[in-house]
């Protein structure tokens, strides 16, 4: 047979060659040009498990851990890996319905892309965790992640420590992507300020997984793993027992206690009442507790020590005296003939003391807290002949006040501090169209009018007096373990001595301090039992205040204030106490401050003092209008919910309250019985009332 078709063998070879060249070209494209495939293969097979470091511990001044770490579990989901999924049994396991399941998956994918793990359910209860550990293998895309959780062995210092919570998208944005969804970060308090120190460094462990998402082993023997570095400890000035005492003393009261170490500005205790147990905001019940705290009208989450705005009242008087002395408008020998009121401003301004001679000199005026004397002193300061203009006088006074730390944020190392208010000329110009004089604001002289201060500012002010002119910015943190240059930069602010008022001669301070000591010996606070062997300098305060109740401005019971420091010779502690609506300063605030000082200086309280602690802790000074307010707020919320869900169960409680508790069958009660369903009918026009029969109502 002739090989006449031999040329075709070349064509066949060509076909072979071309096919192979095409394949090689594709291989070249896959393996050399596009680099994404190795990344995809890594994503497939290597699971970068984030190892969360142990968060740093916060210690008190004696080295006791105020908080500690414990471990709970979060259930994480990677939406893209949720394939071939038995939703029904998963939902049964988690006790949710499918709609909720879908919603959570959708939210997770929306918030954090579908390929990265997001929190599906945080802080599982131990039962749930056990259930999931047993059945988890059936649910691809879900994994348990360990979460260090804070526990608070002393059940104290909630406002100071703050709490940690999952980062929200804004945090992530602010951190330039440093945080990832599901990370925890300090949300408030020291946890927030010292986040960088406490959080430590996340580690990564590369783990090989197979196509069923089972973890097979470590990738490349851990060559690419980074170990987590634990967060560093933070050492504070806090005395946790003192803190506990402060919180105990505030039970059933609205108010605040701040205790400072004057020489360092270190905060020994800071409590705000009503408070809460920090353990309530960790663990699986935290949502529920948080909701309760948020809706409470007495605002337990509100840190009154740095955010509460109070009239300083008579606690301002030692400062007013120092300003007067330094401005030269009064001398230690200055006196005023007070018979129970001040009349020089066209109307009567009262004073609590009536007997003659209680304001014969500065010491006496402080000891007896003579209002007339300090009205006069303030007016002399504003109308200082050296300035010839009350504007300049007021401005000079305001500058003194600023130096004493009033009217601006001090810069304490927990977030969201408020600055209080020290009025200046513009505020009065606006209000009185420029025509005002020293009489207009004469009550500033006794710490009222527009003067508002936070308890921290009041405590800091008295520390300056105790220090005779200098202060350190009040702060909690003394040192950071293994302090880095960045930490030092953070803390330097608190290590600067502010010698703001050292130009006032020591003799002036001595006069005022003597007056303050007289307060405790003979004056307004003499009734409070002494601490043996300790010379206490103090000043009581009783501040008038107003509140809006049912739309009307109403004068409420006076706030009880007390400032003090001790011992006089070498001040170790300065305390400011404010008990809202507590009456005279020496009634509640004074005894509380004394207990604080004794506890700190003597380390333990005497037996009778312990009884006093219990007596104070048992006293309920919550203003009665709060109850009404709470009920009002709750019912408004209930009505909103009712409007949303059309379920009368939300509001029934508030409607049925109207009718008598025990409806008797007598005809007298008939009318009131008629009333309730009519009311219901008016409020619930569209709802079937047959399903809402109340047990107490008989058929009409």
């Amino acid at each position: 047979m002739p090989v006449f078709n031999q040329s075709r063998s070349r064509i066949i070879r060509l076909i072979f060659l071309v096919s192979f060249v095409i394949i090689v070209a594709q291989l070249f494209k896959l393996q050399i040009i596009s680099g994404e495939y190795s990344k995809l293969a890594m994503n497939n097979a290597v699971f970068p498990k984030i190892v969360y470091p142990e968060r740093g511990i916060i210690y008190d001044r004696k080295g006791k851990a105020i908080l500690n770490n414990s471990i709970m579990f979060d259930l994480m989901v990677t939406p893209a890996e949720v394939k071939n999924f038995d939703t029904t049994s998963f939902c049964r396991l988690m006790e949710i319905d499918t709609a909720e399941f879908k919603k959570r998956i959708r939210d997770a994918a929306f918030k954090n892309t579908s390929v990265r793990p997001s929190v599906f359910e945080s802080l599982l209860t131990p039962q749930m965790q056990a259930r999931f550990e047993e059945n988890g293998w059936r649910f691809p895309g879900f994994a348990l992640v360990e979460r260090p959780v804070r526990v608070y062995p002393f059940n104290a210092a909630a406002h100071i420590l703050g709490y940690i919570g999952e980062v929200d998208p804004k945090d992530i944005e602010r951190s330039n992507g440093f945080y990832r969804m599901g990370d925890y970060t300090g949300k408030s308090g020291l946890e927030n300020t010292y986040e960088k120190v406490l959080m430590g460094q996340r580690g990564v462990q590369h783990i090989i997984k197979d196509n069923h998402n089972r973890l097979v082993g470590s990738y490349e023997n851990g060559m690419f793993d980074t170990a987590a570095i634990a967060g560093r400890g933070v050492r504070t000035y806090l005395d946790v027992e003192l803190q506990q005492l402060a919180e105990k003393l505030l039970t059933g009261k609205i108010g605040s206690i701040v205790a400072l170490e004057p020489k360092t500005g270190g905060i020994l205790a800071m409590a705000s009442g009503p408070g809460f147990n920090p353990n309530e905001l960790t663990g699986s019940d935290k949502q529920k507790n948080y909701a309760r705290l948020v809706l409470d009208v007495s605002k337990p989450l509100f840190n009154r020590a740095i955010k509460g705005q109070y009239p300083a009242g008579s606690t301002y008087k030692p400062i007013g005296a120092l300003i007067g002395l330094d401005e030269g408008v009064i001398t230690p020998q200055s006196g005023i003939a007070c018979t129970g009121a001040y009349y020089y401003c066209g109307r009567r301004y009262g004073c609590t003391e009536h007997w003659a001679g209680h304001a014969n000199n500065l010491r006496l005026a402080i000891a007896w807290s003579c209002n007339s004397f300090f009205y006069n002193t303030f007016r002399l300061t504003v109308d200082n002949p050296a300035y010839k203009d009350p504007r300049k006088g007021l401005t000079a006074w305001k500058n003194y006040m600023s130096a004493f730390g009033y009217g601006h944020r001090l810069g304490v190392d927990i977030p969201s501090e408020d600055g209080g208010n020290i009025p200046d000329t513009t505020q009065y110009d606006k209000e009185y169209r420029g025509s005002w004089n020293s009489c207009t604001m004469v009550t500033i002289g006794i710490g009222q009018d527009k003067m508002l201060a936070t308890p921290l500012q009041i405590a800091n002010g008295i520390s300056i007096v105790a220090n005779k002119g200098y202060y350190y910015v009040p702060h909690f943190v003394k040192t950071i373990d293994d302090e880095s240059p960045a930490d030092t930069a953070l803390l330097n602010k608190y290590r600067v001595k502010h010698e703001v008022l050292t130009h006032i001669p020591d003799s002036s301070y001595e006069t005022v301090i003597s007056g303050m000591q007289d307060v405790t010996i003979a004056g307004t606070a003499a009734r409070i039992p002494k601490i043996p062997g300790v010379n206490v300098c103090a000043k009581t305060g009783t501040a008038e205040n107003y509140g809006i109740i049912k739309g009307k401005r109403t004068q409420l019971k006076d706030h009880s204030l007390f400032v003090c420091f001790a011992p006089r010779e070498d001040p170790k502690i300065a305390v400011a106490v404010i008990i809202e609506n507590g009456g005279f300063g020496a009634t509640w605030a004074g005894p509380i401050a004394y207990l604080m000082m004794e506890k700190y200086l003597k380390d333990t309280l005497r037996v009778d003092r312990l009884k006093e602690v219990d007596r104070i802790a048992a006293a309920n000074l919550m203003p009665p209008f709060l109850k009404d307010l709470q009920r009002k707020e709750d019912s408004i919320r209930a009505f909103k919910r009712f409007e949303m869900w059309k379920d009368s169960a939300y509001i029934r409680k508030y409607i049925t309250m109207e009718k008598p508790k025990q409806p008797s069958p007598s005809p007298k009660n008939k009318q009131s019985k008629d009333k309730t369903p009519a009311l219901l009918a008016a409020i619930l026009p569209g709802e079937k009332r047959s399903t809402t029969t109340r047990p107490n109502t008989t058929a009409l």
Partner: protein
Amino acid sequence: MNQRNPTISKGIDWSLVWIYLLLVAIGIMAVFGATYKEGDAIVQSFISFKTDYSKQLYFFVAALVLGLFILLTDSKFFSATANIWYATGLVMLLLVFPLHSNVKGTESIIRLGGFNFQPAEFCKICVALALAKYLSRPETDFSKTRSQLIAASIVLVPAMLTILQSETGLALVFFAFFLVMYREGLPSGVLVIGFATAALVVATLLLEKNTLAMILTGLALLVVLIMRRQLKRDKSILFKIVLLWVICVGIQRFGVPFFFKNVLAKHQVERIYSTIGKDVPEEYLKGAIPTQTPSGKQTNTADYNVKQSKIAIGSGGLFGKGLLKGTQTRYGFVPEQRTDFIFDTIGEGFGFVGSFALLAIYLLLLFRIITVAERQRSVFSRCYAYGVAAVFFFHIGINIAMTVGLAPVIGITLPLVSYGGTSLITFTILLFILIRLDADRQMVLR
């Protein structure tokens, strides 16, 4: 000629044997790489016959024994018994229908003792022999259409039977034999029409219906414009052009949709669309016949397989991750990785360099077979050699193309490398019959 010479080695093309051994060795290594479990004692498990690589080793021994037998056989035996083999092959294909065992959803396997036997694989040898036999008959004049039709039916009958066993992939292999017929004088037009039809089908899948119709119409008008002088002389050309246009549009408009809706199974439609990187259009989704193997609700299985395969090969980079280091193949992301997707192990483990080397070895094998074919004096031997080349080429080309995402996933193996006794033994027999025939190329004149 020299009947007295007892050595079987005389005339054997050793280069083919060496390439064969090299490929089988690569195959065993690749199967080892794909299936070795961390911690197994390597030597023991190679002997144990329990692991896949050990089995492959034993299959190779069996194949070698069989190859030896073939080399000991008289070369005339094959041409003499070609038709008998073909008949046997057909009977076995028919026997599958009542006797098949339901393994992995295919209906093409008969269980013999502990072994699975797939007649469709075996039939490739029979067809290669029978086609060679028919083309080498002195009375066959292949320029006649009748002979061409007979030759085509020799190929197409087993192909049809295989399709009926829902093994479309294996059936397509038989179409490779048209390459043999082309070499023996099948008009080039057939090949051109074949490629043109394929191009039209692909275009139909890729382009929007009306766009393609407009392009076709434009092409027709262009041809008319170019050929307007000839048209003046011969009006029938216009008729031919119009007829061609009608056929093209017909295929595009009705032929392909009909084929996709009524002939192909659901998974085949999916695979084809996954290869061209598009979603399956809704009309085909509804019309598609449900698969015999309801492999779950995932509609993107085909897509997943190809994607993982591409990831495996792509992540190999230039030099690869090394044997047993590939995460894709080691941890089960690549499906069927010891059989159809064995190339992934090479691609991931040895990178572009390794893949290129394997392809080069295969090309060397194919070119060597063609060289051997062209030096045959006997038409039978030559036709058979081309048959072998065609089957090898089709298997290699389609298999690798599907792992790199150039061809739809049809389950055919990579010759001599993929795991599996049937595949290895079939290709060994194909190759060794060729070596036997070639060894006697001087002797057989007719």
